[in-house]
């Protein structure tokens, strides 16, 4: 099959669009974005009251207006945007199986950039006990009820989780006539930073730390939940459950393909240039690891776009890669593989790490058996940890992180 483009970008959120803009700026001729929704913007479109754009455009946009800004920029830059296009399979040679209003077709490009973002884990994947009534939704679903349809999935939900997105969801509820019954956080600490975590309490919503959701009851719609705190159980009447956080990369096409995913991040494995195990495929944005802001994803997309442009110049790099190893309680390291330094300019000059739980101890980076970096402090889950990638890492045989707990 003939090459349709130099680069096909899968996903028209901040990272995908940023990469496409950068590719054009670097002189790459033909760049196509495939977006399955009717508009660009990705997850930002759902967030009607979160500010986007400061980092990348120097001003603030809300919800769908940010997506329109991306559309304007893409048009100005000469990026070909195809909305309503869903990619259903990735082939090793860079062929994509795609469905659109015109039916199924195959597309091929010299490089593919995978920028499909992240979503929240649904109730099923969390294996929560109970009935399965209507009214158990994630924040993303709530936001789309409100933003696109002027509807609400419930009036008196219990909110599970205390990442930033939970607090934003609490605000959404209050602004649209719902009154959360309680906010639950299974861990002993809130995940967002104070003073944001004071917010539920300030508006009079009970905030239970160290509290688990242990049962959902309801025949058709949610009627009540059972919560457990310090070993004792309590029933809360409610008409919905809002599951927040627990973002996961939308990496299903990679998982299905021969390339697989990284078991730590659940996203594609990438090297310092955003190149995956198959050098035809690159990846950027929240599909690499859940979850960062739209602005962060945009910058990442731009950086990977730049690397990809120089990779196109210098030709496919099929060199072996070295995995970046890590042990519990380190959840993920991204980039998770490294390739020997080449002429391609690196997209990442820092490792991004996350831990699975709150841990106090010494985090260290070892290269070929020698410790080259360390830091001791309290590491919090769902917060990014950044560690510079030392130049010698790119020619090493073994690179690994570990934490020794105090």
């Amino acid at each position, binding site marked *: 099959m003939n090459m349709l483009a130099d680069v096909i970008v899968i996903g028209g959120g901040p990272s995908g669009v940023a990469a496409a803009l950068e590719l054009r700026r670097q002189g790459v001729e033909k760049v196509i974005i495939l977006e399955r929704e009717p508009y660009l913007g990705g997850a930002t479109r759902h967030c009607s009251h979160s500010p986007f754009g400061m980092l990348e455009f120097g001003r603030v946009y809300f919800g769908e207006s940010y997506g329109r800004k991306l559309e304007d920029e893409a048009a100005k830059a000469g990026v070909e945007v195809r909305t309503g296009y869903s990619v259903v399979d990735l082939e090793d040679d860079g062929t994509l199986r795609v469905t659109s209003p*015109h039916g199924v077709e195959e597309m091929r490009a010299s490089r593919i950039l995978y920028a499909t973002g992240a979503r929240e884990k649904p109730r099923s994947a969390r*294996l929560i006990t109970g009935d399965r009534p209507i009214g158990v939704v994630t924040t993303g679903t709530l936001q789309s009820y409100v933003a696109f*349809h002027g*509807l609400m999935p419930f009036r008196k939900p219990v909110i599970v989780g205390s990442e930033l997105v939970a607090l934003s969801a609490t605000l959404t509820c209050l602004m649209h006539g719902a009154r959360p019954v309680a906010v639950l956080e299974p861990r002993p600490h809130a995940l967002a930073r104070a003073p944001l975590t004071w917010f539920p309490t300030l508006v009079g919503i009970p905030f239970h730390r160290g509290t688990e959701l242990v049962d959902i009851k309801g025949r058709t719609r949610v009627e009540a939940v059972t919560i457990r705190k310090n070993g004792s159980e309590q029933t809360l009447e409610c008409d919905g459950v809002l599951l927040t956080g627990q973002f996961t990369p939308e990496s299903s096409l990679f998982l299905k393909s021969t390339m697989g995913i990284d078991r730590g991040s659940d996203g594609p494995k990438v090297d310092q240039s955003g190149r995956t195990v198959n050098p035809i495929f690159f990846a950027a944005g929240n599909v690499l690891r859940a979850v960062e802001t739209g602005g962060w994803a945009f910058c990442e997309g731009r950086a990977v776009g730049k690397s990809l442009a120089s990779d196109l110049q210098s030709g496919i790099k099929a060199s072996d890669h070295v995995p970046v190893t890590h042990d519990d309680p380190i959840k993920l390291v991204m980039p998770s593989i490294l390739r020997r330094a080449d002429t391609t300019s690196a997209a990442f000059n820092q490792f991004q790490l996350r831990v699975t739980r709150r841990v106090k101890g010494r985090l260290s980076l070892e290269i070929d058996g020698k410790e080259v970096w360390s830091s001791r402090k309290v590491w919090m889950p769902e917060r990014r940890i950044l560690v510079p990638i030392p130049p010698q890492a790119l020619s090493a045989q073994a690179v690994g992180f570990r934490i020794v707990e105090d």
Partner: protein
Amino acid sequence: MVDTTSVASGELFDVAIIGAGVVGCATARRFAIAGANVVLIEKGSDILSGASKANSAILHTGFDAPPGSLELELVRAGRQEYLEIRETLGLSLVQTGALVCAWNELEADKLASIEAQGRGNGIEDLKVLSATQARETVPSLSGHLVAALEVSGEHVIDPWSAPLAYLTQAAGLGATFLRNTELHSGQFDGHWILKTSSGVINARSVINAAGLYGDVVDQRLGFEAEFRIKPRKGQFVVLDKAAFKHVPRIVLPVPTEITKGIVICPTAFGNVLIGPTAEDQDDRVRATVDTETLRALLKRGVELVPALEGMPVTAVYAGLRPASESKAYRVFSRPAQKAITLGGIRSTGLSSSLGLAQHALKLHNAFGEKFEPRHDIPNIGVPNLTETQERDWQRSDHGEIVCHCELVTKREIEAALESVVPPGDFGGLRRRTRAGMGRCQGFYCNARLAEMTKGRLATSLAAAEEGQA
């Protein structure tokens, strides 16, 4: 006439069928084809509201059914008819075959007798395989495998589209379907006078296909209870479509006296399911899932197929099987009262339903009622949802996709809402279209579906506006 909410006064139906599970739907079809004026009544807001909504979706051969049993006869008859009508009605079939896997020597010793039982049951395509031979067909099976019995005829089907097709065809022949209609009592006085939550229904004869309420309905019809339903819950975990390539065939355990055991099974929709558990309970309605059991199912799945390690969970569900004191089907005919009970259809109802329907008609013929068989049978198909057959999204003019995970088009959802037997609740819409059934479970499409189904389902997805009831 379909789906009227109250009953035309005075109409005397030939046959009233209680319960729109897979057995009720198949029976409605069989009697409608035979020329009867049929009414099918259902307590729930949609077909498949009880036991039939959750099963392992296998079209059984009957290789392991009790020899000489009615179950065996009807599974075989039902399966044969399914294969015969499959193409006309657009029904699903994934010809996976199954491996009964022995994980220790003790189990391996049983394979020969299972094979012998299968041959005795009239199933020919059986073969005992060494572990090596078995792994040639399913390379991902754990190295602990000792031996396996290959049963090539066990297949996977779409368990929801088939009953829908049966009822759709019955409706095309004029059958009446009344949902949200609970039977309160029945009296036989030359013909049946059935008091229901939708009013009185008159019928010459009655067929009880009430599944989890089979014993209750018999009592409400005034009969001595011949059996008692003891619901047996089965929990399932559904894995991401990425798991499908690792489980090309149905992986069955060596059965015990109590249960067929935990199955690892590809689905018609391209996923893999692990389950069911077998948990006796008294509640006939609630089928809850619980964290520990779901974890245990996942663990078992990984033990048997190590490649499933880390596979994302797409869905979890639980169903209730209408078990009774006995493993046998509880089928009774009462010619004096022109009543038939199709009860205790524990775990093979999907395979045997068409056979049960044939059997019910045979029993009914003995009542002396005569119908004029129909020759104008409409071959109304159901939309295909099976991954291995052409889906709407693969067609050249499919328009817009609403559910990205399951690639469900807008026009598929609209067609389901406008169909002859439209969905009565969200579960029904999901079963008819797959919308919201994929890996994100509605993260992307749930709000859109709420908009599209406004005012059309028993329980709306969106909460009422403030100030509304």
